[in-house]
């Protein structure tokens, strides 16, 4: 550095500053482009939900010529009401989430904080089944539920989702980090095993329970393959199965785009709001256990 004369340094500094500024602008432009491409379809969904089905055939690309809530109205009338299917989705996802989090947390607690025979083998076996994609066992599952006369019910959509290995794993990893002293202190005070679980473990682990509950809720809410197979009757179908089937009641094959976009917006909005209000938790839950690959 000493070799340079001061004027040279000054000039190279200006160049450096200038090129840094240029880089800043370029990076900003690239990120704006990426963000626009990511968000544009979602924004279009929302904009198009304020057009009528008729306007969607004439003007799919622009802003609504006439802003209207007609499509939202149709969501509530369409063939007895898409809103019934949204209610189905809510019931299925909610019950599934409560059961899945409860069952996983119970089991995770034992795997994380107790020593018992066969613990590590059993845990490894359970994790190994994660290798088997759930879709592979669909034929066996289908006959199992058919024998129980549960095809075309809400049960058949809830039950296969209540023992998530991923949830068990997430929650166990978190619980293993909770200091034992905390639990011992409660036990010394005379608390039973279940009380220690409900009064200490659950509150302390509420961040991971909440994060997993959101993940689980989303995956059940968004499920398609299994529901499309086992829910054929309109009154038990979740919203995700009905949305793609919504066609013009008169012409038959033409999708009613306004109504579909209104339904899609309604089915997306709750999750979008939760996401925007707690995005950090959302995005960090993605990276749990996957970075150290």
């Amino acid at each position: 550095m000493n070799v340079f004369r001061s004027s040279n340094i000054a000039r190279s500094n200006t160049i450096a500053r200038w090129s840094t500024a240029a880089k800043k602008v370029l990076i900003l432009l690239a990120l704006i482009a990426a963000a626009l491409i990511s968000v544009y379809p979602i924004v279009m969904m929302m904009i198009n939900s304020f057009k009528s089905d008729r306007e969607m055939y004439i003007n799919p690309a622009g802003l609504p010529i006439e802003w209207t809530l007609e499509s939202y109205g149709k969501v509530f009338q369409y063939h007895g009401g898409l809103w019934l299917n949204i209610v189905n989705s809510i019931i299925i996802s909610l019950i599934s989430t409560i059961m899945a989090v409860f069952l996983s947390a119970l089991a995770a607690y034992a795997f994380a904080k107790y020593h018992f025979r066969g613990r590590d083998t059993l845990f490894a076996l359970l994790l190994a089944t994660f290798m088997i994609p759930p879709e592979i066992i669909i034929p066996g599952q289908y006959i199992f539920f058919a024998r129980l006369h549960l095809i075309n019910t809400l049960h058949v959509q809830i039950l296969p989702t209540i023992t998530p290995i991923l949830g068990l794993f997430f929650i166990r990893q978190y619980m293993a980090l909770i200091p034992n002293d905390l639990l011992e202190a409660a036990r010394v005070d005379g608390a039973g095993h279940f009380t220690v679980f409900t009064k200490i473990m659950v509150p302390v682990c509420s961040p991971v329970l909440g994060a997993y509950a959101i993940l689980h809720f989303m995956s059940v809410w968004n499920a398609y393959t299994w529901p499309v197979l086992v829910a054929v009757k309109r009154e038990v179908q979740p919203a995700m199965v009905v949305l793609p089937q919504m066609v013009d009641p008169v012409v038959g094959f033409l999708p009613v785009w306004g109504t579909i976009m209104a339904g899609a917006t309604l089915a997306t909005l709750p999750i979008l709001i939760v996401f925007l209000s707690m995005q950090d938790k959302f995005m960090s839950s993605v990276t749990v256990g996957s970075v150290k690959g």
Partner: protein
Amino acid sequence: MVKSESLSCPVSNLTAQSNLRKRRNGPSLVPYLFIFPFVLFFIILFVGPAFYSLYLSFFRYAGYGESVWVGLDNYRAVLQYNIFWIALKNIFFYWMAHAIPMMALAFGLAVLVNSKLARYRNVFKPLIYMPQIIATVAAALIFQNFFGTQYGILNRILGAEIPWLSDMDLARWVIVIFLIWRGLGYWFVIFLAGLTSINPEIMEAATVDGATAWRRMVYVTIPLMRNSFLFAFVVDGVVTLRLFAEPNILVGKAGALASVQVAPVLNLVIEYIRSARFGMAAATGWILFLVIAIISWLQFRLFRQEEG
């Protein structure tokens, strides 16, 4: 699996006793009680059907009446069925065609956001991640609307009538674009976490040694991230091989399955079940599982080689 069930069964009767005993000997049956509900439901709802699927794959069974042992005939029939091979080719195409550009884009964006020169990081991160939040079905419907021939957004903007989704050679690329759009944010967040976990001392050392930003990227960051890339590629592959909703909703009309030319393997499983050929459905599923297992095993081998 069966063992743990027989272990857990007597547990419920012994609760009171064990609670008394535990005060002296430490917990004995208590942990089994905690895992019992999960394990029981898991055996009934997953392990049982899984073994039953395996069993079914060796039988001809229509869902009622007698099942007939056919040995490996179902597997043979699937492997000789040209539609299975088309479907297998399709899912490998979807994997290769979308994973490579998507990973490159995701990594590039992660590098940009991670750069010291980037501003408004906390605005861009959630925006780029947002497509992940939208339900697959809703997102696929938006794309179906966007790429529609007569009433589509894109054709309206272009003033053309390009059959994006009715010409299957174009439709497969629309599916690829959809997969990239939807998956980008996920891997962007993963890679960003990977980048921020790189020890800054390594970077400083490289800078002190006179490495330019570009050289630091090529000789330090990318080699350090190699395992993450490989891992991401395989995980993404396993998900893509199980593809179902995306191609069917984009290309299939009004909830129907997509045409064979762009159909994934799971379509065969669903079609066999709908036509009550459970043995064939199960065999198709297990063949798909074998493909996935081989890919995962190859990845594992690659990791091993690098460490050893």
